C-alpha cells in the first residue's frame, strides 16, 4: 500500500497536475454554485477538456471538478437556500438559517472545514480499506437496499419539531407520492402523467428542490420587501472559536465515517449519507441543542457537509474496484475512463496503478486545494447576501428558472416549478415542514424499485424481510429509531412522576 501511495504522490505532485487540481476545483466550485448545475453537469462539461491530457492527469482534474462542484452546491444552499443537488439539501436546513442570522461567513467556513475533514477521512479510508470494503458492498442486494432506504426515511424524525411528528410524516408521504409521477421503471407503465410527454420522465429533483426551497423562500421575502440591515462580514466573522471546534470535532468525525460507509454502497451515495448523519447528530445532541436543529445549528450544518464529502470518496470505491458506478456522477466518470480505454474493476490496481493511486491521492490534494482556495473567498461570497432584497428576490427567481430550463430545455418545467413554488409557499405559510417531503421524493423511487426487485428475487414473498440478516438488522435499527423519541418521552415522564 505504501508503494501505491508513493505512486499516487509521484503522479499528483507534479506542477502540471497540481495546476489541473487547482483549475478543476475552481471550475467545479463556480459551476456547482450555479443553480441547476451540479457535479454531473460540471464533469460532463469538462469531458472534452480532459481528453487533451493523459489519463492520469485527466482523471486528477475530474476529481478536482467533482469536489469543487459539491462544495459549490453547498455554497448556494447556504447563501440562497438553493440546493442544486440532492446531496446538499441537508446543508440548507441549518446553513441557510445561519446565513439569515448574519452568520453566512461562519456557515461557509464550517462547510469548508467539514467538507475538508469529510473528504480527507474518506480518502484515507479509501486508501486503507479499498479491497475489504469492496467485498462488503458486493453483499448488498435489493432487500438490503430497501431496508437502507427505509432507514434513510426514518431520519424524518430529525426534522420533526415538538408536536410536528404528524405533519413531518405527512410531508414524507407527499414526497413519496410525487416520486411516483412518471414512468414506473419496473413495469414501464406511465403513472400520473395525464397523457403529457413532459411528465413521462417524472418530476425533476432540481425542479422540486428549487421550487420548495429557493423559490418559495424568495416568495416569502417578497411579502416584506424592506431590507434588514446586513451583517458586516469581517475577517474574524468566519473564524471558529476553540469551544466551537471542540464541539464540532466529534460530529465531523462520526459523520465522515458514516458518510464514507454509506457512500461505498452503490446507489446510496451522498444524499442518504447526509440525511442519515443529520438525523444521527440530532438524536445524539443534548436536548437544548436539538431544538436548534433547523434553526441554525452548527452541528446540523457540519454533519451533512462532512458526510456528503466522505460519501463522494466512498462512491469511488465500487467504481474503481468493481467497475460499478455508485452514483450518477461516478457513472459519468466511468464513461470518461472507458473513453481513455481503461476498464475499472478488480484488475485496475494491477493494470493502471498510476490512475488508481493518482486518483485517490488527488482526492486528498483536491481537498487541501479546495480549503486553501475557498477560505479567502468566504467574505466575498458572503457579500452576496448584502444585495438589497429588491434585487435579490428577482435574481433568485431568475437563476432558479434558468437553472431548471438548462436541465431539460423545456419551458413546461418552468410552469411546473412556478406551480410547485406557489404550493410550497402556501404549505410554508401553514408551517408544513418541506424537508421531509424532499427526502421522501428522493428516496421514494429507490425504495419502490428495490422492494419490487427484492420481491421478484424472493418469488413474490415478503420472507426476505426476516430471512436476510443484514436486512433484518437494518429494519430493527429503523424500528428502534422510530420508537426512540416515544421511549425517551416515556422514560422522562416516569422519572418526573
Amino acid at each position, binding site marked *: 500500500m505504501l508503494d501505491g501511495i508513493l505512486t499516487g504522490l509521484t503522479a499528483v505532485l507534479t506542477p502540471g497536475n497540481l495546476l489541473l487540481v487547482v483549475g478543476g476545483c475552481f471550475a467545479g466550485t463556480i459551476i456547482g454554485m450555479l443553480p441547476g448545475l451540479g457535479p454531473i453537469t460540471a464533469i460532463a462539461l469538462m469531458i472534452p477538456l480532459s481528453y487533451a491530457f493523459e489519463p492520469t492527469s485527466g482523471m486528477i482534474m475530474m476529481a478536482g471538478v467533482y469536489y469543487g462542484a459539491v462544495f459549490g452546491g453547498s455554497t448556494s444552499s447556504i447563501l440562497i437556500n438553493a440546493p442544486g443537488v440532492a446531496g446538499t439539501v441537508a446543508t440548507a436546513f441549518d446553513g441557510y438559517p445561519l446565513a439569515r442570522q448574519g452568520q453566512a461567513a461562519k456557515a461557509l467556513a464550517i462547510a469548508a472545514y467539514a467538507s475538508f475533514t469529510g473528504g480527507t477521512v474518506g480518502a484515507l479510508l479509501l486508501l486503507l480499506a479499498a479491497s475489504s470494503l469492496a467485498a462488503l458492498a458486493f453483499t448488498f442486494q435489493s432487500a438490503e437496499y430497501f431496508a437502507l432506504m427505509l432507514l434513510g426515511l426514518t431520519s424524518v424524525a430529525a426534522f420533526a419539531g415538538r408536536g410536528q411528528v404528524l405533519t413531518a410524516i405527512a410531508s414524507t408521504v407527499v414526497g413519496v407520492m410525487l416520486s411516483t409521477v412518471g414512468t414506473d421503471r419496473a413495469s414501464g407503465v406511465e*403513472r400520473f402523467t395525464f397523457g403529457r410527454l413532459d411528465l413521462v420522465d417524472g418530476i425533476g429533483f432540481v425542479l422540486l428542490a428549487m421550487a420548495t426551497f429557493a423559490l418559495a423562500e424568495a416568495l416569502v421575502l417578497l411579502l416584506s420587501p424592506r431590507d434588514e440591515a446586513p451583517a458586516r462580514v469581517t475577517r474574524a466573522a468566519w473564524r471558529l472559536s476553540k469551544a466551537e471546534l471542540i464541539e464540532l470535532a466529534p460530529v465531523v468525525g462520526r459523520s465522515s465515517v458514516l458518510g464514507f460507509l454509506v457512500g461505498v454502497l452503490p446507489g446510496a451515495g451522498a444524499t442518504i449519507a447526509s440525511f442519515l448523519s443529520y438525523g444521527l447528530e440530532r438524536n445524539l445532541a443534548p436536548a437544548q441543542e436539538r431544538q436548534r436543529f433547523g434553526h441554525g445549528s452548527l452541528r446540523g450544518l457540519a454533519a451533512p457537509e462532512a458526510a456528503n464529502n466522505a460519501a463522494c470518496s466512498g462512491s469511488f470505491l465500487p467504481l474503481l474496484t468493481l467497475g460499478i458506478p455508485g452514483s450518477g456522477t461516478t457513472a459519468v466518470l466511468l464513461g470518461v475512463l472507458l473513453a481513455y480505454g481503461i476498464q475499472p474493476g478488480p484488475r485496475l490496481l494491477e493494470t493502471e496503478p498510476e490512475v488508481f493511486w493518482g486518483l485517490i491521492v488527488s482526492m486528498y490534494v483536491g481537498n487541501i486545494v479546495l480549503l486553501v482556495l475557498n477560505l479567502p473567498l468566504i467574505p466575498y461570497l458572503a457579500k452576496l447576501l448584502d444585495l438589497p432584497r429588491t434585487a435579490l428576490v*428577482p435574481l433568485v*427567481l431568475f437563476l432558479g428558472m434558468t437553472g431548471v430550463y438548462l436541465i431539460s430545455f423545456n419551458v413546461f418545467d418552468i410552469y411546473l416549478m412556478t406551480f410547485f*413554488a406557489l404550493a410550497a409557499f402556501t404549505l410554508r405559510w401553514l408551517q408544513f415542514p418541506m424537508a421531509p417531503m424532499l427526502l421522501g421524493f428522493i428516496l421514494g423511487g429507490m425504495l419502490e424499485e428495490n422492494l419490487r426487485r427484492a420481491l421478484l428475487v424472493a418469488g413474490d414473498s415478503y420472507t426476505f424481510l426476516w430471512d436476510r440478516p443484514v436486512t433484518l438488522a437494518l429494519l430493527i435499527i429503523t424500528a428502534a429509531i422510530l420508537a426512540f423519541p416515544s421511549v425517551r418521552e416515556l422514560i422522562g415522564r416516569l422519572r418526573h412522576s
Partner: protein
Amino acid sequence: MKANLLRRSVRRNSPGWRISGQEQIEVDRNRVLAILLIGFAAAYGFAIDDIVLDLWAEEEALNSRTLPMILCGGLIVLALTLLVKGSGERVQPIAWRSLARLGAMLAFMVLFALVLELAGFWIAGAAFLASGLLLMGERRASRLVGVPTITIGIAWLLLRVVLDVYLPAGELWMG
C-alpha cells in the same frame, strides 16, 4: 356585548372564520392543512384509476398501483388525524397588498416561460428582472437597466461563451 360574545365563541370553536375590523380571517392551521392534504390525496386517488396495468400485473404482490394506493390511504388517515386534532394555532393573516404582489410575481414567471423561446434569453430575462425590480419597489433607472444588463451579460458569458451551453436566441429574430 352580544357581538363580542359571539366573536369569542367562534374563536374558541376553531376552525371558525372570524371577520375582524381589518377584514382578516382566522382559522386553525392544521385544519386548513388537513383539508388541502385531503384534496391532494383525493385527486391523486382518482388518478390511480388511470394507471393501466399489464395483464399479469394484478397477480403480483406489488404492482404499479399498490404503492400509490397505500400512500393515498396513508395520507388520508394522517390528514383526518390532523383535522380532528387541530393545532390550537391560527393561520397568520397575509395583507391583500402582499398577495397581489405575490400574484404579480408568479404572473411574471409564467410570462418569462411563455416568451423565453420566442423572444430569447436576453429579452425575456431582462424583462423579467426589470419587472421584478419594479415590483419590489425599485424606481432608480440606473438599477432598473443596470441589474438586468449585468446579470444577463454575466450569465450569457459564463453559460454560452465559456461553457458552451445552449441558450435560446429567440425564434422571432432567428426566422
